[in-house]
């Protein structure tokens, strides 16, 4: 069968060989943990100062809730380990601003809160039970989007979901965390998928894996051999294969209408890491307090796939991985295409941090931008079939009406256009500015 693909996309050097063969290592609990009150898309958490008496000097146990919000699109945050709260206040956040965070000095005992206990068998849980467990565990999309997982498991009545897709594409260069999770926690992924299928009343589960990870594909395929309603789908290796609309198109042949969510075509996507988190929440009652991430890049002395407690500082992780090389030019939280460049390493890992990258100047290819030569390479790589150069130009001229007419809001900032541009124009940055201005004018 000819392999389906999506339009556009790019093939950056994936640089995955640095870490793809390295088994996940559990990093010891660090000397300091910083838990920001916002680690998801949606309403930020409020500190549980009254109910749980979370305040400076108090003792917290692993898994104890630190912040929550009554809003539906939100997810609570928990203490990743036991220890003393030594500070509450603004702290560096991967997004580049300071956000209220709880700083914990771990006591090294890693004592778990009393309410952490298994939720029972999946057969005995109702869809509502599953949603509640997922919400209370603070589980969000671990691929990087950090959308609260329970919201995706609660589609409105009129939009039935028949397919759940587990995203094992890991199309971002450098990252191998999902790859390792698929190899080492495959059974937990399958269990998590079954829980999602049950919560949504779906009929089919699909695990999509890029064909540059044949070992993960073979393992998952042998695992689902007995499952009638679950299949593994091999995906062409091309960035951004893991973007939800591209993933849905390639795995199911369905096209999500412009401006709509996947549930419009009866599909829900979850990352492999999210599936594992849901499994742990059901089986052990553990909220989301740790994740697997890739520490790599030519600026890192000892690249690794690490399982770390959320709130661990990037500086501690880099120290654990042998420190940074002098030539490091960019420090990135996440992947190189959609990640966030950091001004320093004093920033905590949050739920959506899939990697810590140290890129040297050869990797980042620094160059000043030249005028657009209209080569249209950006037009041909855009997976949304937009005209990045024209939208960017409209933004640059503050002509936001024109930017909107060119469908600026359909851009999901995958970065293919900026990546490919021979003039090195920061196209995504211009488009982002345009999107912000369009949204501002809509909200007024």
């Amino acid at each position, binding site marked *: 069968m000819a392999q389906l693909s999506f*339009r556009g996309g*790019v093939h*950056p050097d994936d640089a995955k060989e640095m870490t793809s063969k390295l088994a996940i290592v559990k990093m010891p609990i660090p000397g300091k943990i910083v838990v920001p009150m916002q680690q998801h898309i949606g309403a930020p958490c409020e500190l549980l100062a009254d109910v749980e008496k979370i305040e400076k000097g108090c003792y917290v146990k692993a898994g104890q809730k630190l912040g929550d919000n009554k809003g539906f699109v939100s997810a609570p945050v928990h203490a990743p380990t036991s220890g003393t709260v030594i500070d509450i206040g603004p702290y560096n956040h991967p997004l*580049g601003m300071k956000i209220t965070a709880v700083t914990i000095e771990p006591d090294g005992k890693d004592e778990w809160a009393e309410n952490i206990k298994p939720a029972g068998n999946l057969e005995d849980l109702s869809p509502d039970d599953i949603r509640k467990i997922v919400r209370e565990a603070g589980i969000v999309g671990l691929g990087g989007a950090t959308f609260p997982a329970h919201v995706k498991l609660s589609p409105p009545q009129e939009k039935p979901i028949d397919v759940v897709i587990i995203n094992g594409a890991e199309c971002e*260069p450098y990252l191998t965390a999902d790859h390792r999770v698929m190899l080492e926690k495959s059974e937990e992924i399958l269990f998590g998928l079954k829980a999602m299928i049950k919560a949504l009343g779906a009929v089919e589960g699909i695990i999509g894996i890029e064909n540059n990870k044949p070992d993960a594909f073979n393992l998952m395929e042998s695992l689902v051999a007995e499952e009638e309603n679950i299949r593994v789908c091999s995906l062409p290796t091309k960035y951004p294969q893991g973007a939800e*609309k591209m993933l849905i198109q390639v795995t199911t042949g369905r*096209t*999500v*209408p*412009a401006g709509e969510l996947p549930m419009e075509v009866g599909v829900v996507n979850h990352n492999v890491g999210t599936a594992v988190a849901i499994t742990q929440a059901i089986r052990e009652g553990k909220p989301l307090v740790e994740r697997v991430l890739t520490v790599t890049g030519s600026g890192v002395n000892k690249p690794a796939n690490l399982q770390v407690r959320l709130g661990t500082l990037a500086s501690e992780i*880099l120290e654990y991985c042998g*420190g*940074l090389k002098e030539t*490091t*030019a*960019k*420090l*990135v939280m996440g992947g*190189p*295409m*959609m*990640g*966030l*460049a*950091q*001004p*320093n*390493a004093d920033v905590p890992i949050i739920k959506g941090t899939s990697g810590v990258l140290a*890129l040297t100047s050869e990797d*980042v*290819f*620094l*160059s000043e931008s*030249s*005028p*657009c*030569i*209209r*080569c*249209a*390479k950006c*037009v*041909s790589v855009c997976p*949304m*079939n937009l*005209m990045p*150069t*024209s939208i960017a130009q409209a933004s640059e001229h503050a002509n936001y009406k024109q930017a909107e*007419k060119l*469908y600026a809001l*359909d851009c999901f900032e995958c*970065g293919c256009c*900026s*990546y*490919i*541009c*021979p*003039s090195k124009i*920061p196209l*995504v940055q211009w488009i982002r500015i345009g999107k912000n201005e369009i949204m501002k004018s809509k909200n007024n």
Partner: protein
Amino acid sequence: MIINGKLIVSSSPLIRSAETIRSVMMDVIIALFPAALMAVLLFGYRALITIIFAVVAAMLTEAIWRRKRDIFSDGTAAVTGLLLALILPATAPWWLVVVGSASAIIIGKQVFGGIGYNIFNPALVGRAILVVSWGGHMAGDIWPSPQPFAFGHDISAVTGATVLASQEKAVTYSLAELFIGNIAGSLGETSALALLIGGFWLVYKGHIDFRIPGGFIGTVFIMGVLFGGGFYGNIFMTGLFHVVAGGVMIGAIYMATDFVTTPVTPGGRLIFGVGCGLITMLIRLWGALPEGVTYGILLMNAFTPIIDRFTIPQRFGGVKESA
């Protein structure tokens, strides 16, 4: 581990491809190498002199205009000079070549604001200026005839009418000769073979969109079949004749695909290519000039902005007639 103060913070994506304008232009120069080599093999040292003068004059003009010491810079001036040389006759005197290159760079490009802002293909602007100013050297109906492998031979003595002048003239050469390029013509246009080799390289590298040469050459072929007069045995051969004769190949592959002056949308590029072919054939078959590639492309350059405006692609998941 203190790393504050030396990290670069930028908007994503945080990596960039190694491709630059300069590297793309280097690829174009590589693509034109077979055609340039054929020019020297066919037309001897005069071809080499023309190519060197055109390229150096273009680079120097741009460097002086921009007051930059790096004369190769992004490589676009070298490409303009090389393309201009390949559409000049081997008999062109050196000063004509220099004037052509300088006007291509200044009037064709820099007065609009430099790279990225020009409306018309600079090399073709340079040629058009020479044609209207020194018609005697550039008539376009009489060209030097090649002397293959006679490097030291002065080509200027022997000239021949272009094969596009008349049916009688056309059939004096076989299609194979036209394809290889051993015929009278401008330096780089005669060898369809050499031009195609470079063209495939550019498509393979992703620098040109097959829609433009495809639309251009396809239209020329169809027009040639329908209205060409049916010489060379049958109407399809006549269509092929129009494709391999004159400047269609170099125009379709290297001029009509110029980034700056052609549409950015896939649909627009097809329209552009078809339009170039149409105008070329209108001029060839019914116009006053034997060849129409230069004006076909220049006219379509003027339509580029409006073509782009009406061919905005359908967005992912979009429906027809939306917005």
